[in-house]
C-alpha cells in the first residue's frame, strides 16, 4: 500500500501499520513500566490457564482410574463395638465367590512379623518395610496387576518357597531382573523369586509387598487360614447390591464386623476436592486479571496525563481525535496482549511440568488457550477505553499549554 502524500482535501489518515508503530511508542520508551503492567495481566492469565490445564490433566487421570476401579470392592475385618479385633472366616473367599454378580475374588493374608531380607546376613531390623502377604493365582486378574519379570504364583509354586515381589519391594531389595536365579531370606527360609510385578495402579500399597502361596505360608509360618482381606470385582451395574450382601455372606455369624469398601470412593472424593479448589483458584486468577486490568488502566491514565504535550503536538501535526484515541487504545491492547500471551505460555508450561511430574497426560483445554488471550484483550480494551477517550477529548490548545 504505497501512497504518496495525499493531495486531496479529505481528512487526516493513519495507516494500521503506522498506528501500531505509534501505539507501541509509549511501551518502547517506558520499558520498565510497560513490563510491570504486562506482569500484572500475565499473572492473572497464567493462573487461569494453569488451573484449567492442571485440573483437566489430573481430572482425566483420575477419571481413567475411576473407570478401572469402579467395580472393585474390598472386604476386611472391622473391630467390634467394643474395639476387639476380629477375623474373617476361612470360608470367606468361597462364600463371596458364590454371589452371582461377583466375577473375581482374591483373598490375601497378611503374615505379621515376618519380613523379607536380601540375604541371611542382613540385620533383622532392616525390614525395608516390605510386608509378607499370602495370596493365590487369581491376584493379577482381580487387581489388574501385571508381571514385569517371571510369572505370578500358581497352584504349584504356591506350595514351595517361591515369592513374587511388588515393584517397590523389588527395587528396595535391589532385584531388577530375574536373569540369574535369585533368592531372598524370609523368616529363616530361602525363597526363590519367581516374579516381579509392575506397579499396581489401583491399589498402590501392593507395591511394597512380597507374595507367597497359602500352602507354604501355613507350612513355614503357621498361617491360620483366616484371610485379612478380600478383593472382589463384580458386574459394574450391581456393585451396590453386591456390597449390601457381602457382610452376611462372608461372615453369616457376625455380619457387623465385616467392612466393605470401595477404593473408588477415595478417588471420587479427590475429584470433588479438586473441583472445589479449581473454583477457588479460578476466582483468584480472575481477581489477579482484574487487578492487572486496573493496573493497565492506571498506567494509561498516568500516561495520558504525562503525555499531554505529545497529544497536543500530534493534534497539531494532523492527528484527529480518533487517531489519538486509537493510539492509546492500541497501547493498552498491546500491553494486555503481551501479558495474555506471556501468561498463557507460563500457564501452559506450568501444566506441562505438573502433568509430567505426576505422570499424567498433558491436557490443556483449547478454551483456556484462546480464552486466556481473549480475556487479556478484553481486559486491555476495557482498561484502555476511558484513558483513550480522555486523551481524545483533550483540546489541542489545552494539551499544548501543559508543560
Amino acid at each position, binding site marked *: 500500500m504505497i501512497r504518496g502524500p495525499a493531495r486531496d482535501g479529505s481528512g487526516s489518515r493513519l495507516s494500521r501499520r503506522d498506528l501500531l508503530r505509534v501505539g507501541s511508542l509509549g511501551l518502547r520508551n517506558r520499558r520498565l513500566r510497560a513490563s510491570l503492567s504486562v506482569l500484572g495481566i500475565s499473572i492473572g492469565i497464567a493462573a487461569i490457564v494453569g488451573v484449567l490445564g492442571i485440573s483437566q490433566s489430573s481430572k482425566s487421570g483420575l477419571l481413567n482410574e475411576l473407570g478401572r476401579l469402579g467395580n472393585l470392592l474390598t472386604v476386611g475385618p472391622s473391630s467390634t463395638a467394643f474395639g476387639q479385633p476380629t477375623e474373617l472366616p476361612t470360608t470367606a473367599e468361597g462364600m463371596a465367590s458364590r454371589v452371582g454378580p461377583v466375577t473375581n475374588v482374591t483373598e490375601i493374608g497378611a503374615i505379621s512379623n515376618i519380613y523379607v531380607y536380601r540375604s541371611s546376613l542382613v540385620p533383622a531390623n532392616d525390614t525395608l518395610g516390605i510386608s509378607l502377604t499370602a495370596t493365590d493365582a487369581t491376584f493379577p486378574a482381580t487387581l489388574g496387576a501385571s508381571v514385569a519379570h517371571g510369572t505370578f504364583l500358581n497352584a504349584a509354586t504356591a506350595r514351595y518357597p517361591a515369592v513374587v515381589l511388588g515393584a517397590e519391594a523389588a527395587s528396595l531389595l535391589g532385584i531388577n531382573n530375574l536373569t540369574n536365579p535369585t533368592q531372598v531370606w524370609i523368616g529363616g527360609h530361602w525363597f526363590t523369586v519367581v516374579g516381579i510385578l509392575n506397579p499396581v495402579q489401583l491399589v498402590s500399597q501392593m507395591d511394597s509387598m512380597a507374595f507367597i502361596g497359602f500352602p507354604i505360608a501355613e507350612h513355614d509360618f503357621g498361617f491360620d487360614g483366616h484371610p485379612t482381606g478380600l478383593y472382589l470385582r463384580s458386574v459394574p451395574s450391581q456393585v451396590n447390591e453386591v456390597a449390601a450382601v457381602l457382610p452376611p455372606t462372608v461372615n453369616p455369624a457376625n455380619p457387623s464386623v465385616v467392612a466393605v469398601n470401595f477404593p473408588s470412593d477415595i478417588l471420587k472424593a479427590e475429584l470433588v476436592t479438586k473441583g472445589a479448589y479449581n473454583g477457588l483458584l479460578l476466582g483468584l486468577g480472575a481477581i489477579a486479571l482484574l487487578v492487572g486490568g486496573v493496573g493497565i488502566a492506571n498506567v494509561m491514565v498516568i500516561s495520558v496525563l504525562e503525555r499531554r504535550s505529545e497529544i497536543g503536538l500530534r493534534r497539531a*501535526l494532523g*492527528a*484527529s481525535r480518533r487517531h489519538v484515541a486509537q493510539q492509546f487504545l492500541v497501547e493498552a491492547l498491546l500491553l494486555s496482549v503481551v501479558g495474555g500471551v506471556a501468561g498463557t505460555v507460563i500457564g501452559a508450561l506450568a501444566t506441562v511440568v505438573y502433568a509430567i511430574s505426576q505422570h499424567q497426560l498433558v491436557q490443556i483445554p483449547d478454551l483456556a488457550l484462546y480464552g486466556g488471550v481473549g480475556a487479556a484483550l478484553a481486559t486491555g480494551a476495557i482498561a484502555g477505553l476511558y484513558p483513550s477517550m480522555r486523551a481524545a477529548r483533550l483540546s489541542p490548545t489545552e494539551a499544548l499549554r501543559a508543560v
Partner: protein
Amino acid sequence: MIVAVPAPVDEAAPPAPVLELIDVVKEYPGDPPVVALGSVSLRIDQGELVAIVGPSGSGKSTLLHVIGTLERPTRGVVRVAGEDTSTMSDTQLSGLRARRLGFVFQQFFLLDGLSVLDNVADGLLYRGGHIAERRRLAEAAIERVGLDHRVDHRPNQLSGGEQQRTAIARALAGRPALVMADEPTGNLDSATGASLLELLRELHREGTTIVLITHDLDVAAAMQRRVEIRDGRIVGDTRTGS
C-alpha cells in the same frame, strides 16, 4: 547552511491568499464571557513573512490557535489555502493541519524516543503514505535546516538550537502552505535565537510563508510585516521592504 532545494511553493494553491480571517471573534465561556479576540480580520498572502507581535495576554496565542485551526472561532470565517474551516469536521480539520499547516513551538515538543529523522518524518505521519517516502522527505527537510549530521541523534543529544531546527524541519517537511512559529526563540539564548531567525528568513526567501508570534519587538522588527495585537484587536499592520 541552507542547501538549495526547490522552493516549497504549493502548486495547487491559486494566487488567492494563504490565510484569511474575516471578523473572527473568540470568546471563552464565563460571566461575563472573556473576549480573547474581538473581531479580527487578517489576510496573509503566499510568500509573506509576518510577525504577530503583542504583550502577553494580548490574544496573540489565541490568534495563532485559531489560524492553526486548533481552536474554532466563536464567530467569523477562517480560510486556510482557500478552504473555509467553519464547516469542517474534526477529521477534515485534522487533515487540513496535516497537509497545509506546519507548527513550530517555543518548547520544541520533540518526542524523546525517536531520532531526529523520525521526529521530522512524524510531521508527515497523518497524511498517510509510506514510511520510506516520509523519511525521504524528512531527510530533505533536515538538510534544509542544516542538521544532516544529526539525523540519527535523539533530541536529548541536541542543543536547544538544534532541537528547534529539528522542529522547524518537521514543520517544513510536508511543504505546508503556512508555517506558524510560536515564540520560536523564546527558549534560546540570543545568539542561537538570532541564527534561528536568520534560518526563518532564508526559508522565507526560498518561498515559505511564515507567521511568527512574538512579544519581542526586536524579533518583530526583523520581519517583513508586523501585525500588532493588543487586547484581542489588531492595532497596527506595518510593512517594510525585505
